[in-house]
């Protein structure tokens, strides 16, 4: 048997022994399966969630390609493929959802020093620390580089003052990676640093923002004379913008994948909703005008899926392509939800109460939530600017 075949047998065997039944496809319908984000404040409704996270975290398989000395799985690409296939085969749930994994860890691996990697990566991988992202500010949205939260050099530490906004789940997070102004006299892009801040520090506070969907996934985060140790600076002083941009690429990639994965996998898709509410005529959606919109949308979705596949086959190069995926993926996800709401008629606009199914009430809120997709992580217009400048090399205005 080859090494890879051996590895597959080991993985299968390990998953068989260690993946709890309620964490797999086929678990009883009433089993509480919550998304697990880890961290110091985590509450586990199902103890299996904690068990599954701990076991996967111990193996380093929440970030399987990260070297073992930093707590990762130390696997190569072929091995990761096998791990994914075997997890998929038993319908194993992702043990951990994490901004640490998606955004911070890749930049720590590239820009962090040895001590930072050893300190933070294992805790991200084990889900011990939940991270949030401190980028936008009330006065700095699309013009992110104008940010004003300042970090003053006090010798032993930085003194941080200012406000971040749109910090996802800041009220549930333990640490924040933040962009701060350390060079107030430098040109705006060259006076920014990338800082890691423990949110238990005195002076850090958060306040949830209620969205049009009625939910509060985002917060305002305030820094009032917060002392941050010097060792928490990632990369060089005033060189944070490069890191920030790199991190945004990771973020855009995962936002664009999110919508598509949801669209393709979901049973409650626009076609079945349209057939349910408009009726079927020889297998066709009965309303011909709506049907033609659905066809156009589903064909674009097919082509977009093929484009993600092609990018992977080409080796996933080019940062500007991340902008294309972010732009197209989020716009597509908005159209998908608009079509689902329209297909459902009155039932697609339910807010609360017992007259509507949970799936209908969830659809209304999900539809409203998608409006933020093309704003967060860089608006669609910003993505189009990036494509114009970086790919098409059109001149600046």
């Amino acid at each position, binding site marked *: 048997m080859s090494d890879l075949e051996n590895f597959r047998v080991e993985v299968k065997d390990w998953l068989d022994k260690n993946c709890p039944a309620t964490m797999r496809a086929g678990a009883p319908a009433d089993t509480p399966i919550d998304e697990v984000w880890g961290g110091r404040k985590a509450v586990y409704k199902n103890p299996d969630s904690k068990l599954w996270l701990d076991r996967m975290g111990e193996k380093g398989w929440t970030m399987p390609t990260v070297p073992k000395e930093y707590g990762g799985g130390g696997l190569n690409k072929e091995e990761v493929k096998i791990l994914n296939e075997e997890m998929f085969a038993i319908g194993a749930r992702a043990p951990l959802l994490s901004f640490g994994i998606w955004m911070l860890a890749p930049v720590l691996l590239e820009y962090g020093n040895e001590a930072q990697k050893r300190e933070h990566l294992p805790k991200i991988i084990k889900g011990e620390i939940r991270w949030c992202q401190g980028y936008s500010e009330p006065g700095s949205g699309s013009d992110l580089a104008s940010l004003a939260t300042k970090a003053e050099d006090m010798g032993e530490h930085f003194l941080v003052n200012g406000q971040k906004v749109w910090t996802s789940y800041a009220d549930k997070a333990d640490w924040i990676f933040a962009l701060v102004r350390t060079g107030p006299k430098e040109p705006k892009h060259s006076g920014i640093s990338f800082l890691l801040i423990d949110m238990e520090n005195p002076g850090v506070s958060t306040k949830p923002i209620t969205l049009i969907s009625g939910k509060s996934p985002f917060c305002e985060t305030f820094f009032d004379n917060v002392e941050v140790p010097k060792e928490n600076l990632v990369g060089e002083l005033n060189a944070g913008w490069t890191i920030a941009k790199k991190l945004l690429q990771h973020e855009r990639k995962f936002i664009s994948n999110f919508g598509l994965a949801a669209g393709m996998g979901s049973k409650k898709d626009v*076609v079945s909703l349209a057939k349910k509410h408009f009726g079927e005529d020889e*297998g*066709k*959606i009965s309303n011909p005008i709506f*049907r*033609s919109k*659905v*066809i*156009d949308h*589903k*064909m*674009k979705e*097919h*082509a*977009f899926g*093929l*484009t993600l*596949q*092609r990018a992977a*086959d*080409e080796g996933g190069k080019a940062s500007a392509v991340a902008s*294309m995926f972010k*732009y*197209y993926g989020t716009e597509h996800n908005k159209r998908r939800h608009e079509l689902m709401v329209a297909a459902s008629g009155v039932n697609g606009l339910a807010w609360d109460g017992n007259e509507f199914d949970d799936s209908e009430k969830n659809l209304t809120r999900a539809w409203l939530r998608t409006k933020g997709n093309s704003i967060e992580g860089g608006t669609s*217009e910003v*993505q*189009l*600017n990036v*494509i*114009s400048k970086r*790919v*098409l*090399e*059109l*001149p*600046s*205005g």
Partner: protein
Amino acid sequence: MKLILNEEQNYLKETALSFVSEKTPVSHLRGLRDSDDQLCWDKGIWTEMVKLGWSGILIPEEYGGSNFGLTGMSVILQECGKTLTPSPLFASGVLGATALTKFGSEEQKQKYLSKIASGELTTALAIDENSHHNPNICELKAIKDGSNYVLNGKKIFVVDGASADIIIVVARTSGEDDDVGGLSMFLVESDSSNLKKVKLDMADSRNYANITFDNVSVDETMILGEIDMGLEPINEILDVGRIALSAEMLGSCEKAFEITIEYLKERKQFGVPIGSFQALQHRAAEMFCEIELTKSAVMAAMQGAEENSNDLQRLSSLAKSIVGETSYLVSNEAVQMHGGIGVTDEYDIGFYLKRARVAETILGNSTFHQERYANLTGF
């Protein structure tokens, strides 16, 4: 299925690009049009293409081809599309070669395939009878008369039909006009008596003909495939054609876009390049995204054909539909962004617009393929 080209396919693509850049820039098509050339393609250029082996790419080795596959053929057509290069490659090397390779008898293959590969003869596929492609409808009839069949009816918009030596004609041998089971194919020599070809003048200055069959008698050895073989096998040929044509159309889109982006960088108004205006930048960036999606759909269809995918009909319709829509967007925006010069005959961009629309109608436009995709998927 990998959505990337292999080394040989990349090599073919590069060869084709340098060939068309050097030998057939858009001025080549313009020259043929301005001299009112009745062939609408150049025999010398075709001979060179044949020498490069392009005409035999879909033909098995034992009949003088290279059997290199549809992806190889498509990437060549994609490069031809970049300079709007006219040639019988699509009608003969794709449609004719596919029809004979898939359905020809041993004798027919011996007789015709090597001549298609060597460029000695060209073929055309006569299928449409109405202003819109609809292979379900066929009124042209072939009635058995001893060891012959007698053909009566009219085919229109036959691509390269004005120059083809052999016409592959879809005829009704049983059933009513919309009975897809009663269809058969015949090989008809274009100089047969009672066959009348009228060359069409289309907006894209390429070679098309309307062909009337008025008691055209064909020997039964000229049946291609089985009598009453029906539409399903014929669709296999059409899908290969649709995929290859999609690649050509994609090439035209890519080039029209490239020309437009260059123009946005050069053209100055208000003292600055017009490409610095966000109103144009965002439209350009959106076109970029649509072209990227189109590339993926075309690539998936080509590779699906190589691997005999059981999803090929859907992939073919996805490609032809999306490339049709992208062609529409890009050709219109290309003209608009060029401003006044874009609507002059002197400037090349208008050729791309004209070709985009005519090509979209060949073997089914976007709405035809949207409906087909939807029916195949269960929408």
